[in-house]
């Protein structure tokens, strides 16, 4: 079977990926804030294209709980959600990671209520970033497809055994249609084969999963999780390399564009990076030395890879699509970027620009404004920055 390029929304691109890796169990809450990803999977199961159990549950809390149970029993599992649904999954996310269950979930990233808003930002994704999951953010529908396939190889790697989340921007990617090269089941399974797992629930060999751990035991298991997340860094790189060899598209934890000689480096995540790149190419033509880093891997945060692209810069502008109000950092992406610099004693102005909350469009003009405001700090140091953050595209 050859690969084919078909027009797909981000949602359907993810559904085709879950089908390609032949998932065994899917559990999902079927209504808002759900997206068409599980609707398509339900269709695949109903018409016999995918041999899987599809469990309709009464909440996202139950959806993730159901796949946690199925994963504990050794199944390859999938679930998907967004926004409030992800928040409802939050407590189970920690359980999946510390129990070391290779659950894969897609997140069409959306704003969190209130006010009620179903459109894109990264508030939901960022709220889940302390759960011990490996987390990726796709740049386009093709990446949403590819990263979902890669997620299974990474999650089920015996050195990792961790849940993986693949984010892709709500609406901008989830509901717009792009040409996507779809992997077929044979090649996807060759790349991400279902693997033997040492600990699964089996009546023939009874074990206990998810027990109580008293103060004498708990701390050790949280350290195990921490070490596994750190270990995943090299496994992810190997999985991306193998993906490139198998399918011709090589991903990295971050992408750098024009960063070698850039005086201002923009750092962005998700579909806005596509707009940012269009801006950067335009600005380069008029002589503005601006570069771009797209962050694809958010957890574990790729400090080394990111730093290589910014260590020659004069100013760094982080573009955040979420707010952590009351924190010292304001934007969540900013906190990781700023600490990456701080740990290396790198003292240039690092600015934070919060954009595009609740589905507001992020345009090339916004990136132009961000770049101009950043250039004003060229030659200065962090302590010269009076206010390190600004909101772009908001009405005063």
């Amino acid at each position: 079977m050859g690969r084919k390029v078909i027009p797909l929304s981000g949602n359907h691109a993810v559904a085709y990926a879950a089908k390609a890796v032949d998932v065994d169990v899917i559990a999902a809450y079927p209504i808002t804030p759900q997206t068409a990803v599980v609707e398509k999977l339900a269709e695949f199961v109903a018409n016999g294209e995918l041999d899987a159990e599809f469990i309709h549950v009464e909440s996202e809390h139950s959806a993730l709980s159901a796949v946690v149970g199925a994963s504990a029993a050794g199944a390859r599992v999938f679930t998907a959600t967004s926004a409030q649904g992800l928040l409802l999954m939050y407590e189970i996310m920690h359980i999946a990671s510390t129990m070391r269950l290779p659950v894969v979930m897609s997140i069409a990233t959306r704003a969190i209520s209130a006010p009620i808003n179903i459109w894109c930002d990264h508030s939901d994704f960022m709220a889940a970033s302390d759960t011990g999951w490996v987390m990726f953010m796709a740049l386009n529908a093709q990446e949403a497809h590819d990263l979902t396939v890669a997620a299974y190889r990474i999650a089920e790697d015996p050195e990792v055994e961790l849940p993986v989340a693949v984010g892709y921007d709500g609406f901008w990617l989830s509901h717009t249609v792009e040409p996507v090269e779809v992997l077929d089941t044979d090649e996807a399974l060759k790349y991400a084969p279902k693997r033997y797992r040492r600990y699964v629930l089996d009546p023939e060999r009874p074990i206990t999963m998810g027990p109580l751990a008293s103060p004498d035991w708990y701390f050790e298991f949280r350290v195990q999780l921490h070490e596994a997340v750190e270990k995943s860094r090299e496994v992810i790189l190997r999985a991306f390399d193998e993906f490139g060899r198998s399918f011709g598209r090589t991903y990295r934890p971050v992408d750098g564009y024009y960063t070698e000689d850039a005086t201002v480096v923009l750092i962005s995540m998700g579909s806005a990076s596509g707009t940012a790149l269009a801006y950067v190419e335009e600005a380069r033509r008029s002589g503005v030395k601006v570069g771009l880093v797209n962050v694809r891997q958010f957890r574990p945060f790729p400090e080394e890879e990111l730093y290589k692209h910014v260590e020659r810069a004069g100013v760094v502008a982080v573009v955040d699509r979420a707010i952590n109000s009351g924190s010292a950092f304001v934007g969540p992406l900013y906190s990781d970027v700023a600490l990456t610099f701080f740990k290396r004693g790198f003292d240039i102005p690092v600015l934070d620009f919060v954009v595009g909350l609740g589905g507001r469009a992020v345009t090339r003009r916004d990136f132009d404004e961000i770049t101009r405001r950043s250039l004003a700090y060229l030659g200065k140091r962090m302590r010269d920055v009076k206010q390190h953050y600004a909101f772009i595209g908001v009405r005063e």
Partner: protein
Amino acid sequence: MAKLPGWRELPRGAVILEPGSSVRYKTDSWRVLRPVIDQERCIRCRICWTYCPEPAIIEVEEPYTTKTGRAYRISYRIDYDYCKGCGICAEECPVKAITMIEEVV
């Protein structure tokens, strides 16, 4: 106490490989009040056995004859290794044959 294993040595994800290992975890230290059964007053109704959430009430084949001459073929004992001292047995006993007395360390 023996040295506990470090995080590298423990089974991944807090899996417990030995079935039924929780019986080795004695919960007697949780107890503040200790139930004591008065075998004279006990009418062997089994209500304490039914209600005990642990279960830490044990039915034993131990004949007992009260001073008034009533003979029973069985008796109830408390498993003090696991009794947490919740007092449900004393509360439910219809003849007040169970008294909660203070644990003395």
